[in-house]
Each structure stands twice: as C-alpha cells, then as structure tokens.
C-alpha cells in the first residue's frame, strides 16, 4: 500500500515501456520477412482478447446495444454517429427501463 504519488510516477513509466518495447523489437524484423505480415495481425487478436470477454460480461441489454452500435458502424463507417447511437442507447436504457 503506497502513496498515490508513487502510482502517478511509476504508471506512466510502465505505459511508456509497453509503447517503446514493441517499436524496439520491430526494428529487428526485416521488411520482407514472412513474420512482418504476422506482426500486423497480433494487435487485432490482442484487442479482441479484451473485447470478446468484455462483451460477454455485459448485460443482455448492453449486448443488444453493442450489436446495434457495431451494425451502425459497419454500415456507416462513422465513428461519431455510432458512438452517439451506442452511448445514447446505454443512457436511454438507464432512464427508460
């Protein structure tokens, strides 16, 4: 258990480390290597690893809003409109139900 300031100093260092280490490692992979295209898919998998469990943990109503939100984004490709629909839906569910 520590003072908040220790967190405020060390957490940015940890975050910076995660950003820098990948960039550093990347410089060891040649541009024409078959590993290069494989590296491109890793972030999608990493994001999905947070997205899928997070989506499954939501309530049925939240999951329904998520489906609507993703469908709107898939069709319109408009992030602002989709977020308005998504957040608006979550708020509407909060106040109306």
């Amino acid at each position, binding site marked *: 258990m520590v003072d908040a300031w220790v967190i405020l100093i060390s957490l940015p260092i940890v*975050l910076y480390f995660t950003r820098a280490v990948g960039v550093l490692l*990347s410089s060891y992979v040649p541009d024409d290597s078959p590993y290069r295209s494989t590296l491109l898919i890793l972030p999608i998998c990493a*994001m999905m690893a947070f997205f899928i469990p997070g989506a499954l943990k939501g309530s049925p109503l939240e999951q329904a809003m998520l489906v609507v939100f993703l469908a709107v*984004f898939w069709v319109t490709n408009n992030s602002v409109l989709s*977020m308005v629909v998504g957040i608006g839906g979550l708020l509407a569910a909060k106040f109306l139900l």
Partner: protein
Amino acid sequence: MDDFRRGAIDSLGLGSTAALFAVIFGSAAIAQGVSFSQAMILSASVYAGSVQFATISLWGDTIPYATVIISGFLIASRNIFMGMALGHIFIGQSAWKKYLKIFFYTDISYVLGMKAKHIDNKFIYICGSGALVYCFWISGTFVGLLIAGSLQKSIIDSLAFAGIMYLGMLVIMLMKADDGYRLPVVLAAIAILALYLLNMEQFVIMLGGVLVGGASNLWLELRSRKNG
C-alpha cells in the same frame, strides 16, 4: 507537414469520441476520490483510457501498488504488439524524435496508421493523429473534472460498457483495413472464446488469441509464398 495535418484531420472523429471518454473519466475520477490534480496528471502522463479507468477503480486511501502496476501493464500490453506491427515506421528517425513521439502511439493512432495506405510519411501522420487526440483527451478530462458534481455516479457507471463498444469499433476498423486477416482473426476469436469459457485469466486469454492468430497467419503466409 501535410502528413501531420492529414493525421490530425483523420483523427477528428475518433478523437472526439475519445474526448467523450475523457469526460467520463474525469467525472468518474472525482466520484472515486481522485483529486483534480491527480486526475489531470494521470491523463497527461499515462494517456491510456482503459488503464486509467482500471487505476481509478482501485483508488482509495491506501492503493495496492502491485495490483495497479500489474493490471496497468497487462491492459497496456497490447501496445507491445502494436509497436511490433507498425514500429518499422519509427526507424530512421532521430532518437529524441522517436522516443518522444512513441508517447503519442496509442490505439487510435495505430488504427489510423494501419488504414492510411496512401500516406507517404506514416511516422509524421501518426504524430499528427496522436497529438490531436492527446489535446482532445486532456481537454475532455478537464471538462469531466469540472462537471463531475452534476453527473450522477449511476450515469457514469451505466456508460462503463461504452469502452467495450469503442474497442469493438477499433477491431472492425482494423479488420476492414485488410481482408487477408479474416481466417486467422476468426480462429483467434474462437480461441479467445474457448479460453474465456474455461475461466482463464485475462493475460492467458490474450496470449492464446495472439498465438493462434499469429501462428495461423504465419502458416498461411508461408504457404502462399511456397505456392508462389
């Protein structure tokens, strides 16, 4: 300079939605007992929404240091993969430029960088995107801290799921950027689902998904090279 401006313009949409999350973060921080200055320092120095939300959820009179740092690292570990994927654009830059601007390398700048196939200088483009989103993020946090008193905690809690929506949107953007990923992505999704249903830890789920996606993509890549 054109690529810098293009990066900033292209990130207006995602940046404004990030600002909305920053407003929620500012309000949630106050509700959790984080002071105004501490919340601003968190946003200005960490600059990673998911990590910041996880951190303030553990905030209290006594903060479990190891838990905060380890959970921060685990959540942010996807940055390592993003760096590995697009890190080659940082090669050839002077050390101070490279290591200063790595700070701005986030989910949004990565996704936009992947989509921007027409851009000559992706390094500058990502810097433009990251700098603009950073401004949005800081401004949003500031506004959130100011209006914290007028937002009920139940409303803030009900918006927690919006973070998952945002992540889903980034995944779709990445998948749309290249059709060749479909089979490995589907296999990775199946692996992630299976590991989740087996009640595995978040880090194991991520490693499993990354390994399955990466291995299947590598196999497809080697096979297509072999077939010419």
